[in-house]
């Protein structure tokens, strides 16, 4: 039996202390952790229930923008009128995620901590997967890599991150607020997830004993004119094949500033910084110019054996998302 203890903590300090113990794992909504435990991906010995941490479920607006508590449920954030009007891509990404039942349970902090849906990582038995068992190899590289990364992979791992809302948050320059034994710090969402490199087991910058307390999203014209487009074969209840989150600040129909992040293409939301620069001053209706600018990033894509189609699909998703954002009043 994989025995574990269960403890409910009431304060952030208690949580941080408890999480410094070996083999401790925080649980909030439980929609991911329980899957890992059932699939044999994780076997924590101490489960620290953080659901009772006061105030961490708030959705607040202040001078710094939107502050989403780590324990805010996905469905509550999606239903926020302020999120819908000032950060539409966030609400859209949330509503395109999972199912209503899961969104009612799953928290925003937990969403960031999701792990890849790679079929080898999620298998019913232990298959070659460096993320699941270091040194065991990566079966996806020479196997089924259709869902794998086209950016930022390594010869150890080509997994993608499955979150939708992290893509929207990364596009809108959100930061992850962290508290822990070393004090408070913040990390941009776009840098929060680690690229695999030589050590694919550690997915995020979160260190032992640390806990996500909130996600802060700055206000901007681009955030108000943002859009999230999710491309998937099944119309609902399915992870993205590719997705695009964009925010545009327009001068007439010309791009003044633009933010673009892709989902389903890398181990983290993939910002298209080079394209964003190149797109400044471009007419939103000029598809040739848009495509040319996107090539600044896509020229560096490294597709595998079965996922080169994601390059064209992702480009089209970005262009469509830009149009949808531009059409927003």
């Amino acid at each position, binding site marked *: *039996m994989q025995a574990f203890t269960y403890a409910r903590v009431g304060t952030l300090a208690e949580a941080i202390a408890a999480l410094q113990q070996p083999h401790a794992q925080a649980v909030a909504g439980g929609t991911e952790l329980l899957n890992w435990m059932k699939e044999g991906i994780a076997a924590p010995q101490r489960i620290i229930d953080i659901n009772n941490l006061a105030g961490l479920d708030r959705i607040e607006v202040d001078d710094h923008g939107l502050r989403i508590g780590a324990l805010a449920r996905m469905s509550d954030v999606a239903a926020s009128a302020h999120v819908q009007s000032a950060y539409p891509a966030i609400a859209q990404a949330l509503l395109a995620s999972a199912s209503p039942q899961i969104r009612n349970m799953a928290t925003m902090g937990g969403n960031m901590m999701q792990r890849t849906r790679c079929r080898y990582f999620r*298998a*019913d038995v232990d298959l070659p997967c460096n993320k699941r068992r270091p040194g065991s190899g990566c079966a996806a590289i020479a196997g089924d890599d259709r869902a794998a990364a086209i950016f930022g992979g390594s010869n150890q791992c080509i997994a993608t991150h499955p979150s939708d809302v992290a893509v929207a948050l990364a596009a809108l320059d959100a930061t992850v607020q962290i508290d822990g034994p070393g004090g408070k710090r913040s990390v941009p969402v776009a840098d929060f997830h680690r690229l695999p490199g030589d050590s694919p087991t550690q997915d995020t910058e979160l260190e032992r004993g640390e806990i996500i307390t909130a996600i802060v999203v700055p206000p901007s014209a681009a955030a108000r004119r943002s859009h999230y487009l999710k491309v998937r*074969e099944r*119309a609902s209840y399915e992870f993205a094949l590719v997705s695009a989150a964009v925010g545009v600040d327009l001068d007439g129909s010309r791009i003044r500033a633009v933010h673009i992040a892709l989902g389903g293409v890398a181990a983290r939301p993939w910002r298209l910084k080079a394209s964003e620069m190149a797109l400044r001053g471009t007419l939103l209706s000029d598809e040739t110019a848009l495509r040319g600018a996107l090539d600044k990033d896509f020229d560096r894509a490294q597709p595998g054996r079965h996922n080169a*189609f994601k390059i064209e699909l992702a480009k089209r998703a970005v262009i469509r998302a830009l149009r949808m954002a531009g059409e927003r009043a």
Partner: protein
Amino acid sequence: MSGIGQSVARLDGPAKVSGRARYTADTPMADVTYAVIVPATRPHAHITGIDLAAARAAPGVIDIFTHHNTPTFGPIDVPLSQPVMPLQDDRVLYEGQPVALVVAATLEQATHAATLVSVTYHDAPFDTDFGADLDRIEVAPAFFGIPPDNAKGDVAAGWVAADVTLEATYVTSDRHHNAMEPGAVVAVWRDGALDVYDATQGVFDARTCLAQALRIDPDIIRVSNSFIGGGFGGKGWGWPYQILPAMAARALGRPVKLVLTRAQTYTSHGYQAATRQTVALGARRDGTLTSLRHDSVVAGSFAGDHVEGAGWDTPALYASPAFSTTHRLRRLHRGNPAAMRAPFGGVGLVGVEIAMDELATALDMDPLALRLKNHTDINPIDGKPFSSKKLRECYAIGADRFGWSRRTAAPRSMRDGRDLVGYGMASLVLRAFRFAANARVTIDRAGQVRIETSTQDVGQGLSTVIPQIAADALGLPVDRVHLVLGDTTLPVAPFTGASSATMSVGSAVQDAAASLRRKLAAAGANGPQGYPGALAALGVDSLSADGAWAPGGEPGDGEASAAIFSFGAVFAEVRIDVDIPIPRVKRVVGVYSAGRIINPRTARSQMTGGIIWGIGQALLERSDMDTRLGRFLSKNLAGYLVPVNADVGEIDASFVEEFDPHASPLGARGIGELGALGVAPAIANAVFHATGIRVREVPIRPEHLLSAA
């Protein structure tokens, strides 16, 4: 009223939605133990060692069975069963094959101990790559008594005589049944008799398998179930997991329960095998077929002889002076495939009906007109007239309900905003499999009627339509009728599959009920209100009558004089975003010629479900095999995509009025698989119409459609 032809709501509906319906795994059982299979992790290997020390030391473990301590099973000859018995020797022929069975006091203990069983293997070369080495094939064995090859006329001459010829290769994918309820068995030895609760589509087949494997008298075995949470072909015949609990229960002297994990359902009871079909059509300028060839290479197994008969029914589709169908088997190191809704034509129509659409394009002809041009009322296979074929009505009604006349011929010519719009259609044909069945009907003085027959309810509505048939024959309301089923102590009925239950079992029930009514009349009952009096006159509390039906006994003509098939026409509309090319099914219209419909409501529900299966086949369902590891990937419903509500557009399924006296005394044929036929090719053809891109593979994926940027 509640007789034949009435839309009676499901009699078992309230029990199912309230959780009162008892499924096999829910069977309460004192002193029960829990068995968990340890599956092989290799596709082809010899077991060199099994270390049980850690597992045996784990809490709650009662015993562990491997090939070292499992009795030798007898050979099984139930048709379509998997002949490789579990835990017999050190050979592994497919990933997922049971290599050990752990029995413990709780499910959790057994599950944990199973993870501690350490098996070492000596790997042997294996082949699980259906797409490679397509010349390493063999002539498929006859299956269901149907030979692999069938031909008539001079195909080569017809090909030469054609004005237009077309030859193309079509690919279908491996698919898994994914019934909601996984396979479940509870086995109890009591007083020298074996009592088995098994969620099987065939209690008698399961009993035969157990008797043969355990070398015991079938008369001491009882196999039963009350509800089955979906079968779709995956719970038919006999599989290794069904035999192990009875073996273990005998050895341990305690009841043993085994429920497959979701992952194990991907390797324990078959799957629909991938196919590669080459279709060659020759036609005159006016569309008249001169030659039809359908050559199928189908994935098979070294562990069994299942053949996906993709081309069996192809020649029955159209009038062609010459046809040839062949089936070649490419055996792989995978478990034996199985029938899966809809097998055979459900797979083969993908090739043939996309090819017909391609031919229509080549001829610059309307796809429906091409089908009508080649309509036949005589079965080209044997020259017999079809028993009852109203396919022309299906075409006409379907085209009208769908609005087929609004279709503009050119691909990519219909548009709605950013969506490309495509209309596609397909014909379908399904041979009637019919089996002998028996039933008993009993009435008591309170006017309550009890039907007994060993058929199985797989969720399709049988528990409603069978009582309707008896109610109709007796002239009583259906709420007076109670059906007892799924038990080898009841009158013998066939396995529930191959769209056979209503006509086979229903006819036996009708026979029994009519016989009972005659008995009651003879005892003085002048109509239903006289039944209690008749029983009183006879001095009995209840009165029974047995009934039976078997194919071949049709009055005046017999089995041989007509070809019994069902037919239909499916029309599909897809929408495909012009930039993001993922097809969405806007609506499907299906019109069917299936004989008499006993219950239009449950029948429409069943067709709707079948059409949704077809949508999955067309756009989503595909079990990927890692050919380096030799295993299916994503053995769960997160990674294996089936349609959700958002994938399913408007569905309009209907039947033409029909009575087929050749098929059964009820006038009914079968519909279980019918709805799943023809949908995938109709959608594929609609995708071509929308985009101008011809995809010859299902499921159709975005990468197929991205090329035309």
